[in-house]
Structures are given as C-alpha cells and as structure tokens.
C-alpha cells in the first residue's frame, strides 16, 4: 500500500439486482483531505459513498466485489464486521436525521453503546467536546435536554456531525450534507468541514460545483457508474482532461 493513503479502492463493482451501479472503480483518498465526488444524478456517487462504510448491505439484493483497503485491511474481508467499519467511518446524510431523543442523548447514545464512555462526567465532557468541535456548543449548551428535532435544519445537521465525531471515527462521509440547508447554514457547515479536515479524512458527495470548488482538495467525477476523472480540485475545475468532465463542470449536461 502506498504510504500517505487513507482509503484505497481497488476494482470496486456493485450490482443492485441486475443494475450494474458501480463499474471497476479505482481511487485513493489521502489523509486529512477533503475529496469531493461530483456527477449527474443517478451516476452512482451516493452508492459509492455508502459502499465505503458498507451501508449498501442494508439494501436487499446488492452484490459488491473488489476491495476497499483501510489501514492495510480490506473492509469487505470475511473477518471484518460491518458494525465495526461503521464505527470507524462516520456518515452524515442529506436530510438532517437526529435521533428522536434529546440533544445530549443524540451525541452520547452511540459512544455509550460502544463502551467509549460511561454515563457521568466523562460522558458530559465527550458531549461538550463533540458539540464544540461541530461548532454547535454555544447555541445549545443551555438546552441539552431539549429534543434534537427542536433545532433548526442547519443546527440539526451540525448535531449529526457532532454525533458522528463522538464515536471518534477516522473518516467522515458526507452525502450532500447541505442540500437541504440555506446559504448561511451551508457556509457554517463548510467552514466546519475545513476545520474538521485537520483530524479526519472527509469524503463528500455534492451537487453543488461551487461547494466542491470551495472546500475540496481533490475531486472525483463520476458518470453512469464509472469514475471518469480524479485529480486535484484546481486541475479538475480549470483544466480537465476528459471531455465529459469539462461538459459537466461547465454546465453543458447534468
């Protein structure tokens, strides 16, 4: 394995029944970077993202082949438990989906179940740390017992990020995390991502080209289940090699 690689995708294929959704994907993600995955709707970018933390297995009739190597281990090996994979690789979804519990419990629920922390002062600290890390602490510190759903959309999304951070993952996957949010909330999430980059490797699926250009270090362009082009974001946006990439980025299709 090449040094300075966090995630290595080798010949990843995925089928939904007869639908070949991902075709021989090869990719590498570097640590402490943000990689944006862009492409038209239905190109398989969300499917690809979900295959990194094995969330596709929750859908019936999916078949995956190929390797995803993280820390010298293929996560699709038989001796790897998908629950352990998901603990190491957090995920933030398109729609903010806090648990139907209090703000405090939203953050503390999973760490307690994982045995990372126990109820009490230790847990309080973890909750505070996670909420500070996701830039939500100041807004909620006086109402930690309120339900998570009582927050605004942008706050809920940051709560979901705090919840993800609380189980101390290595990698955070984000599936269009700002598409349901207004520009101000989006800006907050984006600056939060740049902040989080110091500690985590972030992979983000986005429909928003400006967002990809603003936050990401690397960009991968997907179309019809194939990875068309991958490179530094600046290169992809200014000087793409492939015609299809150029057409998509300049808005001629997609």
């Amino acid at each position, binding site marked *: 394995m090449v040094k300075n690689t966090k995630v290595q995708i080798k010949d990843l294929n995925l089928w939904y029944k007869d639908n070949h959704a991902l075709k021989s994907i090869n990719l590498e993600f570097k640590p402490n970077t943000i990689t944006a995955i862009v492409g038209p709707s239905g190109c398989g970018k969300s499917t690809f993202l979900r295959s990194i*933390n094995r*969330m596709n297995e*929750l859908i*019936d009739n999916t078949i995956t082949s190929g390797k995803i190597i993280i820390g010298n281990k293929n996560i699709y090996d038989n001796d790897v438990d998908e*629950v*352990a*994979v*998901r*603990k*190491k690789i*957090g*995920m933030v*979804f398109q*729609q903010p*989906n*806090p*648990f*139907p*519990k209090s703000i405090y419990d939203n953050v503390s*629920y*999973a760490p307690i*179940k*994982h045995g990372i922390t126990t109820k009490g002062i230790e847990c309080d600290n973890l909750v505070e740390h996670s909420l500070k890390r996701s830039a939500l602490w100041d807004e909620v510190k006086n109402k930690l017992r309120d339900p998570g*759903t009582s927050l605004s959309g942008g706050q809920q999304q940051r709560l*979901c990020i705090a*919840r*993800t951070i*609380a*189980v101390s993952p290595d990698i955070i996957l984000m599936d269009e995390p700002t598409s349901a949010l207004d520009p101000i909330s989006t800006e907050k999430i984006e600056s939060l991502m740049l902040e989080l980059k110091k500690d985590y490797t972030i992979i983000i699926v986005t429909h928003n080209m400006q967002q990809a250009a603003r936050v990401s270090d690397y960009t991968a362009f997907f179309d019809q289940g194939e990875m068309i082009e991958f490179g530094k974001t600046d290169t992809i946006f200014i000087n793409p090699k492939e015609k299809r990439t150029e057409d998509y980025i300049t808005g001629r299709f997609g």
Partner: protein
Amino acid sequence: MKKSENPFYDLSLKKRHAKTKRFKLFTYSSLLFSLAFLLFFIVDIGIKAFPALNQAYVYVDVTYSEKSMRSPRVAIDKKYKRIVSRAYLREIPKHIKQNPSLLYTTVKKWVLADDQVDQYLKGHYSKLKPKDKIFVDKLKKNKIIQLKFNKTFFSNGDSKVPEFAGILSSMIGTILTLIVTMLFAFPIGVMTAIYLEEFSKDNLKTQIIEININNLAAIPSILFGLLGLAIFINSFGMPRSSALVGGLTLALMTLPIIIVSSRAALRGVPNSVRQAGFAVGLTKVQVVTGHVLPLAFPGIMTGSIIGLAQALGETAPLIIIGMIAFIPDSPTSILDAATVLPAQVFTWAGMPERAYIEKTAAAIMVLLSILILLNSIAIYLRKKYEVKW
C-alpha cells in the same frame, strides 16, 4: 357593473357550485344519519338500563333462630312472604354460619324485595296479585318499601332469581380473559411484526405470510372458537369454560390485528432514523429497541388496545368453548369456569323474566363504558407520545 362587463363572470359556475353544495349536503346528512342511529341506540339502552340502578328493598324483622336455619322462610313475618326475595331467604343460614353471634336475635333491617315487587314499584308489568299490589302500595306509603341503590348488581354473580343477579362474576371473568389475551397476543404480535418489518427480506415467502396474516384478520370469529376448542380443550386438555382457554382463543383472534397495526407503526418510522443508527455503528437490536420502537410505540399501543377492545366485545368464539355457562360465583383463577360480559348479556337477553330486561341493558352500558374507556386510552396514548416530524 353589468354581468357582461365582469371579466370573472362564468355562466357555468352557478351550476357547479350548486353541485358542490348538494354534495356537501349528502355527506353531511350521512353523518347525521349514523349519529342518529348511535344516539337512538345509546338513549334507548340508557333508558332501559336506568331503572337497574335501583332495586326495591323492604324494611322487616329478620329472626335468626335454629328453626330459620333449617327453613329460612320462618325468619320473616308470614305476611311478607311474597314480598321478600326468595334468594335472600336462602342466604339466611349462610349469614348465621358466617356470623354465629346473630343466632337467637331479631334484627330489623332492609332486605332485598322480590323482583315482582321491584317491577311493580318501577311501573313495569308485574305478576303480583291485586291484593299484594294493594299491600305493597300501603308499605310504600309507610316507607317500609323503598327503591335503593342496587349494590347487588355489582357485588353478585349470575342468578336465576332476577333481583339477585349481578355482573361481578362476568366482570372478573372478562378481566381474567383479557389479561390472558394480552399476555399472549401482545408480545407475540409485536415480535412477529418486528421480525417481518425489520429482519425478513421482502420475498415470496414473506409475501405469502403477509397475505395469510391479512386473511386471518378477516376470518369469522366463531371459527376461532372451533380452533380453540380443537387445540386448547381437545388436544391440550385445558379446562373447559375457563378464562385460560377463552383468553388464548381471543389471543389467536387479536394476533393478526396487533401484527398488522404494529407493522404499520414500524413502517411509519422514517428510514432515516434507522440509517442514522447504523451510520454510527449501532447493531440491529440497538437501532430497533433504541430508536425505532420508541417512535412506533404509540401506534403499536393504539392497535393493541383496539384489538383488546374487539376481544372484549367478542362472544361467538367464547360460546363454542363454553364460556356461556351459568356462573354464580366469581372465578378465582384462570382455570375456573368463567363467563364474560357480552356472554352475560346474551344469557340475560334470553331470560323469560321481565326483570332481566333492565339487567341486560345495564350490563350493555357497563360493557360500552369499558369500551369507551379503552378507546379513550388509545387516543390519549397516541396524542401523548406522538413525535412530530
């Protein structure tokens, strides 16, 4: 402004609006129609049941002696012999046995009057002889006969003597039966729903199971009685007429209702909640018990209570397994012979004595009150635990 100048004038609109109005009237009158039926039913039963609240009592000397132990008729004055309830007289030896200090005393007390006296006082048809009627009128004038609150109705079991009949044993039978029903139907139903909704894959096998559960919900209830008779009584040898067999039979009947409503409640939980749980590395059981079930809980409870209410009113399957029996004494365990409220209503409705009419209506009112109470609890739970999304 003239019609021709109005840019919004549309000739056809008047007709179309008239149609809307007529349609609204139809829907509204349907509502009124069903409400009128319901109201008629409640008022009719209520009027019939109201007299059962009171029962005629007569103020007489009761002589407790060795003679009255042997033949209780002599315990009271001969002139009252057609006035005082036979069932009460029969109880006198029991009273003495329970409380020996009564022996050799004479106590002046209010005792239960005969049902014919009771019916006469309430202005209903009575078989009393004319001279007895005159005697009763006289007693009434002297306040020796009075209508008093009918404690007997709530403290006694069934009896062939109308004034002595009550709903206590059928109430206890109903409670025991429903406890057995819920203890079996609720956990099995909810667990089945969880398996089908959260674990099983959507394939031919689960589709066949689903169709059959829906079929089960539509099976005539009397067939469940035959099933209960065959399985629980014939094969397992459980005691006939018992709350155990009745409860299990009703559980079979309630099961599909609980499964279907619990599945609907589980399906109503947004998938994003499950994904959120899996994405932070929770296991299936942690996601289901920690996040999905609490959200589905109001729906599951509502469905279960409605299933319970249906089981409460069910009579047909219980007739088959013998819970229609004459039960004067309250059952003390789920193995004792018991009867239930709707079966008691059925029994009383078939009795020849007039005095049973008001008892029947009163038992119906009690049954309806419990049903309304259960449904109110269902609505309350749904409102209280409903999570807004």
